[in-house]
């Protein structure tokens, strides 16, 4: 037992001394967590969305067209407490030719420099008064670049602003009773009224990503490199046996993953406000199963590759598809059948599903029995292949 523990300690020490390993083990998961949390942590939230739009009022006078102008002006004003308005609003300068301004802005819109242009046509106020007395209703022209996702998003917000103006006009003209409006609420699955943050969805994904890359790159890298430079051969002339070596290596690997988990969790919890409770037996078991699955996967790669470079190449090829086709960072929806098949054979899909279900971040999507059977199947397959193929010494 002492020999096994010494080996595990040596494995941890060697890994922590290696700057490249340290980077992928600790720095990269934290970096990715930070980037994704910063981008998606508050998507669409106040101060986090801003569109460049132009407004051209071709109507004379104030009235209803002025109401629209004011509504957009308010949206372009920074909210109290700092931040910036949702729109950066371009309007013709005093005395500027509106036709020329519109032409200029249309050019910008078509070239992606602007998200939308709203044009209030001439005679709008008169037409609107007519509409309130039963005549045909007037319309504002909303120019969008449908090819641009940002423009489409801006269009949705502009629709809402106009809906707000419509409501205001209807209330003022006595056509809509605000007391009679039904209340609209938003709910989030998993946590009732309060919206669980994206960080709560992301953090388990980053934790498993760390374990996954550690198994995928760390295990074959260490084994194949140690074999290639004949470090393993030196072990074999001692009383150490392969099972004892593997046991020591596995304990060391679990130790490294624990260290990694601690670092990622601390950043997720204290820097980004994750509220997940990992201190539960079922969650700990899923984490342990994940480490075991990915470690076994690493041994599988080590048994297939002939050289350390070959091992890294196989790991590199599998890394991206397995990570992204599992829902680690974004939920899996709308995939065609051939990609869905890859999702269903991917052990990461089942492990992340179990982990999130255990943590209460949504309910499990994968069938319960498969969530255990698929990772265990991969472990069994990997051990069987590694048992048959993995060479523990260079050929003499």
């Amino acid at each position, binding site marked *: 037992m002492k020999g096994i523990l010494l080996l595990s300690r040596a494995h941890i020490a060697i890994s922590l001394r290696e700057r490249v390993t340290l980077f992928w083990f600790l720095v990269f998961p934290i970096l990715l967590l930070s980037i994704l949390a910063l981008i998606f942590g508050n998507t669409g939230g106040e101060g986090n969305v801003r569109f460049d739009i132009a407004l051209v009022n071709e109507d004379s006078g104030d009235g209803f067209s002025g109401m629209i102008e004011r509504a957009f002006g308010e949206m372009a004003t920074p909210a109290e407490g700092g931040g910036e308005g949702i729109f950066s609003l371009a309007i013709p300068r005093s005395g500027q030719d509106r036709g020329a301004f519109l032409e200029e802005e249309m050019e910008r*819109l078509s070239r992606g420099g602007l998200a939308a242009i709203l044009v209030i046509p001439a005679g709008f106020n008169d037409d609107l008064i007519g509409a309130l007395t039963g005549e045909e209703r007037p319309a504002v022209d909303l120019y969008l670049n449908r090819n641009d*996702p940002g423009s489409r998003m801006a269009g949705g917000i502009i629709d809402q602003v106009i*809906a707000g103006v419509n409501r205001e006009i209807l209330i003022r003209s006595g056509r809509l009773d605000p007391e009679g409006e039904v209340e609209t609420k938003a*709910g989030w699955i998993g946590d009732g009224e309060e919206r669980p943050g994206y960080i709560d969805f992301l953090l388990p994904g980053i934790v498993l990503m760390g374990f996954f890359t550690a198994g995928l790159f760390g295990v074959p890298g260490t084994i194949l490199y140690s074999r290639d430079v004949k470090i393993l051969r030196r072990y074999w002339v001692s009383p150490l046996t392969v099972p004892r070596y593997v046991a020591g290596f596995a304990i060391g690997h679990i130790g490294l993953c624990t260290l990694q988990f601690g670092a990622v969790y601390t950043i997720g919890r204290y820097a980004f406000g994750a509220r997940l409770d990992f201190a539960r037996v079922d969650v700990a078991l899923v984490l342990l199963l994940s480490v075991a699955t990915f470690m076994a996967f690493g041994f599988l790669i080590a048994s297939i590759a002939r050289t350390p470079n070959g091992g890294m190449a196989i790991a590199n090829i599998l890394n991206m598809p397995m990570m*992204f086709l599992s829902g680690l960072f974004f939920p899996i929806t709308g995939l065609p059948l051939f990609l869905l098949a890859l999702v269903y054979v991917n052990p990461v899909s089942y492990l992340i599903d179990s982990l999130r279900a255990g943590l209460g971040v949504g309910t499990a999507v994968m069938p319960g029995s498969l969530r255990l059977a698929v990772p265990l199947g991969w472990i069994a397959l990997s051990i069987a292949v590694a048992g048959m193929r993995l060479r523990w010494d260079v050929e003499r």
Partner: protein
Amino acid sequence: MRGLSSLIASELKITLRDRMGLFFTLIFPLIFILIFGFLMGGFGGADSAALGTALLSERDIGSLQEALKDAGAIEVVPFATEEELSDALSKRKVDFGLLWDGEELRFLYDPARVEGNYAFQQLARGISAEFNLLRQGAVPPIGIREIDAGGIETKGWFNLVVPGIIAFSILSAGLFAVSGHITAMKERRILDRLIVTPMRPVSLLVAVAAVRLAIVYFSTLITLGVSILIFGLAFRVDWAGYFLFVGSATIGTMGLGTIIALLVRRPASASNLANVLAMIMLFLSGIYFPIEVMPPFLRALSQGLPLTHMADAMRYVTGVTEMEPVRFWAITLSLLGIGIVLFPILSRYVVRPSRS
């Protein structure tokens, strides 16, 4: 000149023998397109969203159904109970949900759907506003006439992603070409042997650049071809602009890679640094998600990244979006300038004997 052609020939052999390197250059952009295209497709749009409904009360049901019909091209999937709806939502059988109990409208979302929730919420607001008007018999006095002012026919999200991925593959190839390759030569002491010959440092970099340029042209054309043949995408490529831009971008990003080669000694560290820079740029450059949805400081950072402008220029030369010609030339010439300036200046520091 003979020396340079020998260097180019040997570089070409090394590149063609590196099967893994070739795989990453040629196949990886396609894998990226496939995975990310489907996963992140349609960010910000909800054109084909599925709305699950549980209408538990008959009150004003006609108005609600009318409002749902007016909401656009969404698919409405009815459920009998709130539990069934929540279950379908959590299993991602529908994109968002609506509960109506006769008193309040309650929209349900999955917090994990960061790529779609914003658009689903906009749709929900529209449905709610329309419902409130319809049930009181009111008609919105102002209509909206939506006009597509895009200079190019709308081709969908995938068409925008592909040129972005091509730009990303140029960036990766350029960054790795010098940083990974030269540092590997240093580590294997090949550089030491070359330096004692009459070879000029810049000749080696020119040879690396020439071979890398050929590979990048080939790779980007394959990506474009596969996108057209397999995914049925349409591009209106300005070939002169395309060849000029791809060449300038490759040289420019190789110039940036020279800086990495200068900063790190080991190929593994160079690859790591290049990898991380490429990954950060991929997320922040508006290739998969619009820059407009990012916090202000990330938006500013995005504007400072070469990949943001490279992706825009690539979309322009493939005829997917329009751009000010002045901006296109500014991007292309800046990249070319970076390469031309950095190469000769830094080559004498990069191509030198190992320090150990």
